[in-house]
């Protein structure tokens, strides 16, 4: 099946759980095969099938829940990260950088997360992303920029927090 692994990975990032991701991929393939006559030979198949997956996600229960929490005009608003509820202890448990990156990606609002993943993981061009998400190329660029900036800020804060906790931990050890 074409793009099966990639579509599943993308679906899993969108839905954030295995069961919904599997339902989403299965429904995507069924819809793609039913509507294959609408696919124009010579156009971008990858963008077409990712678009089906994303549209299916947006109309799913999980997708509706996610989009209902998205600002009405997110391109105009400065992105503010959600307040972190993590304690120094939970950050200490989350030691490796890759885990930090995973959680930072996961914390991104869905419209930034999907744009970033299509660019970095699926290695789509800006034009392909625009076709997949049905948005102008300029919006792709601004979403990418915001996603990266947010990710850097998020990681910077977490790593700084870790360092501070490490210092505290060292001080505590010296005191013992």
């Amino acid at each position, binding site marked *: 099946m074409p793009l099966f692994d990639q579509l599943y990975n993308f679906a899993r990032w969108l839905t954030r759980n295995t069961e919904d991701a*599997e339902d989403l991929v299965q429904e995507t393939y069924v819809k793609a*095969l039913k509507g294959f006559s609408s696919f124009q030979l010579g156009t971008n198949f990858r963008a077409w099938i990712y678009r089906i997956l994303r549209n299916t996600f947006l109309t799913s229960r999980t997708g509706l829940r996610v989009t209902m929490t998205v600002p009405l005009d997110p391109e105009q608003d400065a992105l503010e990260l959600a307040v972190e509820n993590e304690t120094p202890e939970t950050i200490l448990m989350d030691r490796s950088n890759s885990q930090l*990156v995973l959680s930072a990606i996961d914390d991104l609002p869905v419209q930034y997360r999907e744009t970033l993943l299509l660019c970095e993981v699926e290695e789509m061009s800006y034009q392909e992303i625009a076709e997949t998400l049905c948005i102008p190329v300029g919006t792709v660029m601004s979403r990418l920029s915001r996603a*990266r900036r947010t990710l850097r800020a998020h990681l910077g804060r977490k790593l700084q927090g870790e360092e501070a906790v490490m210092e505290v931990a060292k001080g505590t050890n010296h005191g013992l």
Partner: protein
Amino acid sequence: MVCESGNAKLDMYLDGELPEAEMRTFDAHVRSCHSCSADALTRLQMKRTIQVAGRRFTPRAEFRRRVQQDIAHKPQRSLGLGWMFAVAAGVILVVGALMSTYMGTRSDRGQVFSEIADLHVATLASASPVDVISADRHTVKPWFQGKIPFAFNLPELQNSEFSLLGGRMTYLDQTPGAHLIYDVRKHHISVFVFQEQSLRTKLDDNSLSPKKAPFNMETWSQGGLRYFVIGDASAPDIDSLAKLFKAAS
């Protein structure tokens, strides 16, 4: 800190999205600007980290099988009545042994249909669906010489609605074969030809096309070759093209 001139373009540069001339100019700038090159390296590391972290999830093998089966033939809805399940279970127990051989064959057939459908979809999705581009059968047929271990005839299409777009080599059951693509009223139809004896799955003529499949398909064996005609065109169109091939062989 990134210099003012480089800041805005750095992400586009690393994404390979700058126009070619601008890319060359900016590349020269990054190589000579210390702050830009340092920031480019940091951003590149971040890109690679996201790339690795982003490929985190892989589908379960069982899920993959389920979707393949679903595509091959959509499962029938159950009636949801307990007593019917009980009766069905009894029937299954009685005839289970007799059915096992048949089901195995049917599963193989479903698998073959699924693979043929995959080949058809993946080829049409490709930027270059055919390796020999020609509407002339006398160009397309000789192209396969030396590439596949058999020869076959292509039908004359005059006075028909079909047109030949071209062909390519393909594989099924690790066996090389020919894949031809035809056009009829903007629908694309694939014709696959393989050596019958090389296919591991033994098939009966016209036994493959599941009733609820999204594609129409016809298959038959002729002259030691196994033919598959598949596409989203109507069943009469698929049948017409199959008849042309049968007449030519």
